[in-house]
């Protein structure tokens, strides 16, 4: 994103679509921008002529007829055409049949709990703030919220859909090509609404299967002494009260599942890159980075403890 004049592309842009839904809206957008630009030009030119043109021309324009043609007939035709085109184009996107994958996303203040569902709607695998999906097939998203209203939005892939208490909204969309796309909460949800993002990682179906298989496994055992120390710090500080690390005693459900946290693209709901340094930074100053979130700042940990804990978490690939 170095080029300041490249305002179209981006991993969170309506105008750089990576799936059929977003592509259709991008096409619709460009058509409407073009037509809208022309109509604006028409109004400007008409106004300029109404002021500056010779008297004869102005007299011809200065009639009730102008109002009927310009204000009623013209918009009626344009709007009807646009409306029908949009209706037609939108219905072409509706796919029948079972989706390739079903993912439940739960909005939390201010992160995303992700459940991969089995065909019976049971939760089969849990992760957070990152949704990996296979390319080339429709994926169904079941959206609900644990608290206030949130809105699920990945601009490069599809439009947004709200997560509303007492309701489950669902829709499906597909991704054409592998890549990393950024999504963000679009409904104001309080203090840290600004820092509630996530990533969608689209993978070739075979790569996706490998990843999915790995994610269903329990957490990796520590391989290094520092990682083992890190696990001890994790247990001693009660991290397991809020977080689950499958295969260990940690089974908290208040915060994100950390079983494979080291494999994720980002930390803290899409706001930090994921590495040992940011892990340590987040643990020691979560309240500074994202004030008001449920994770306390563990600023009493010593330097070595913090480093060990971060390397343990990083090892949870």
């Amino acid at each position: 994103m170095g080029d300041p004049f490249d305002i179209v592309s981006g991993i969170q842009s309506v105008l750089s679509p990576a799936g059929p839904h977003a592509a259709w809206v991008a096409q619709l957008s460009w058509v409407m921008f073009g037509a809208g630009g022309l109509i604006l030009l028409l109004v400007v030119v008409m106004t300029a002529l109404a002021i500056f043109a010779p008297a004869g021309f102005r007299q011809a324009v200065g009639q009730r007829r102008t109002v009927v043609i310009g204000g009623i007939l013209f918009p009626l035709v344009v709007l009807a055409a646009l409306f029908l085109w949009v209706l037609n184009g939108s219905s072409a996107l509706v796919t029948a049949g079972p989706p390739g994958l079903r993912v439940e996303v739960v909005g939390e203040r201010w992160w995303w709990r992700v459940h991969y569902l089995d065909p019976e709607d049971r939760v089969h695998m849990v992760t957070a703030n990152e949704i990996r999906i296979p390319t080339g097939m429709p994926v169904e998203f079941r959206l609900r919220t644990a608290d206030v209203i949130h809105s699920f939005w990945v601009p490069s892939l599809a439009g947004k859909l709200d997560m509303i208490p007492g309701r489950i909204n669902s829709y499906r969309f597909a991704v054409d090509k592998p890549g990393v796309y950024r999504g963000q909460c679009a409904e104001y949800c309080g203090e840290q609404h600004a820092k509630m993002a996530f990533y969608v990682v689209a993978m070739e179906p075979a790569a996706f299967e490998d990843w999915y298989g790995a994610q269903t496994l329990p957490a990796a055992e520590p391989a290094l002494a520092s990682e083992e120390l890190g696990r001890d710090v994790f247990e001693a500080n009660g991290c397991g009260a809020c977080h689950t690390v499958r295969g260990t005693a940690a089974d908290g459900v208040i915060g994100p599942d950390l079983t494979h946290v080291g494999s994720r693209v980002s930390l803290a709901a899409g706001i930090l890159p994921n590495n040992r340094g940011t892990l340590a930074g987040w643990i020691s100053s979560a309240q500074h980075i994202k004030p008001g979130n449920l994770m306390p700042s563990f600023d009493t940990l010593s330097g070595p403890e913090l480093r060990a804990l971060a390397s343990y978490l990083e090892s949870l690939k």
Partner: protein
Amino acid sequence: MTDNTTPHRIADTRADRGSARITYPNSLPRPEGELEALERVWAAPKGWRKLSVVNNNYIGVYYVGASFLFFILAGLLALIIRVQLATPDNQFIGHELYNQLFTMHGTVMMFLFAVPAVEAMAVYLLPNMLGARDLPFPRLSAYAFWAYFAGGLAFFCSIFFGLAPNGGWFMYPPLTSTEYSPGINADFWLLGIGFIEISAIAGAVEIIVGILKTRAPGMSLDKLPIYAWAMLVFAAMIVIGFPAVILATALLEVERAFDWPFFIAERGGDPLLWQHLFWFFGHPEVYIIFLPAAGMVSMIVPTMAQTPLVGYRLVVLALLATGFLSFGLWVHHMYTTGLPHLSLSFFSAASSVVAIPSGIQVFAWIATIAAGKLQLKTPALFILGFLFIFTLGGLTGVMVAMVPFDWQAHDTYFVVAHLHYVLIGGMVFPLFAALYYWIPTVSRQPLSERVGKWVFWLMFLGVNITFFTMHITGLVGMPRRVYTYPAALGWDTLNLISTIGAFMIAAGVLLFTIDLVRRFRVTDGPNAGNVWNAGTLEWLPAGDYQTRSIPEVRSREPIWDQPNLPEDVKEGRYYLPGTATGQRETLVTTPIDARPQYLLQLPGPNWGSFLAALLTAAFFMGLTIKLYVPAMIAGGLAIAAIFWWMWDTDHGGSDTEVDVGAGIKLPVNASGSVSHSWWGVVTLLLVVAMIYICLVFSYLFLWLVNGDAWLPDAARLPELWQPALSALAWIGSSIVVILAGRLLSAGGWVAPALLLLLAAPLLPLGIWLEVQGQLETGLRPTETSYGATVYMLSALQGVFVAAVMLSALFVVLRCLVGLVHNGRRASFDNLQLLWHYATAQGLVGLLVVHGFPRLVGMG
């Protein structure tokens, strides 16, 4: 009038229409002392007593000034927002302040600037434009203004204590419910906008009655200035639209205060109920702001082009169509909530169609400009800027009306761009045009043309730089209402550009304010005069009493078409050239063809309005900061102050008729359905009825959401004799009141007063019976949304009944001192209207609560 050489003045370039022979209603010379008497009764109080002024020439100007103050304050909040967003990961302000800032910016701009500003302009302009001496309820305007000003300032100050609301101007629950917003910030919003609800409703009553009843003779509806048409539609929209938000805020406040779960999903409430109610108000709100501005444009364009508006009837139709259609669009704020696609298509079509009435108006203005010769003075520049900005905003409006596009654009900076184009284009630019245009009618000198051009270009470029950029910012993925954003997403440069543009707008507004301070001088002597050679009545020579005599109107632009009208009016040749009864008066005319009906005596200055307003503000603020005892004391005193101001407004009729000119003899004041106060009360009751209808809608909506299991079995409902008793109590009370009316007609006053005292307890008795019946079934308001809704129907009835009983007390007090008798019975008649409405509303509530579950149970 000033000399003809000022650079502003537009020469009359229109062809002389010749002078037909006119017969004037009154002959010259006028009797000695007539003008002086008129001046004396209309003279405004001086010095600190000016706070008790009620005349629209003063209240209107104060009102516009106050709304402009809030425009500046909310604009300053926006500048802080823009500084914070100028760079990524900016540490300038934290999320706590930011979230309060954007909530306050939206709330203050919408509720304390936009709606009050257009209403304020109407308070000032309408009587002048219609040929009335004042609005029909001057003390109500004064009350509405002071309540808004005091309440608005107190509300705004919450930001200095970190107590400002932070849930967004749309206040969606459950974010704003007690669980997620335990502080009093949200209560500030809910009670704070109570003020604007009061002043908007009061304004709507004034405007409807003023336009329909107090026009100059001959100003039939087809000669009504377009601005008055726009304000009529505006007022009707307030009557229909505001009740939804009044009810919504009441429900949320009751949920927060008493835990009645209207919006809590676990107990059968639904957050979407709020969204439906809020947007049923919120979308029309946009047109409530735009239509008055469009009306102003339709007045300014013809003057600037020196030719009548092309397509007058089409424009009137467009205004009516906009008002009608705007109530079918609210769901387009809810495309992303997961509603069925079929209903989305309907609302999408309706949202597109509303572009047509706007198209009609845009082309009518262009055609008018073409038909005449546009003088490129500052008001005209702002009109042209408005045309460009508003058209662009309208086009993006059609885009977001398209469902798939909105799924992407919704809640992003694209929508921020769109709404600012529509609101700044559709309201702020016309308002600036209007200020430049009409200030000569109130100030000794107009504003500077030279500075005006600078103001225009700074604002025009600033708006486009700020907000055009935001379309792109939104499309490349930036959501709204974020206090910061990361650097890597390509939003940095765009945001910096928007911030620079925002400071250009601010520079323009600052320049305007400086010019205002330098040149704007309110005058009760000669004003700058008809500098633009306009054709409508507000440009006639005027004093505190408006025009010396009330002209007879024969066309849409009387000054253009009736030669020598200003001089004739000033000399007193037209109607009512003085004061006929030694009091403030205006002519009441018939609603359609404006034939004189009666002479209305208008109330003068009074401290009641001012005090009642401050006490109302204290009452609401006390409730918000949980000082209940002082709040109750203030509330009681506010009612006393209202009684004081109402006390001498029911003058009663007089036996003698007065001559207003042309041999027309009019009765003084009136009662029954021709009376202005009857019209006012009926308008008010429409508002009350709409609030109740919205609550019945909420009941049905929650039933639809929850299914039949939401309703209790017939066996668990109170037995039918219980509601029957309530019904009996209410119907009985109405019969007693009718009887009291009969006895009053027969000439008594003791018996009517006694009967009112007898009937009054029956109203709360009916409610008590209903509530008792529900309690006996074990139903509790806190347990389910069904219980909450059922008790809320009674609570709303209770609030209205309390108002009826206070009115009854007022009438009984007046009976006791002999101020109510058959010749002076407007207060009694109005009480009767309120009373019978209360009975009807109660019966509807009983039908819903006891009938509907049984009906569903049968089916």
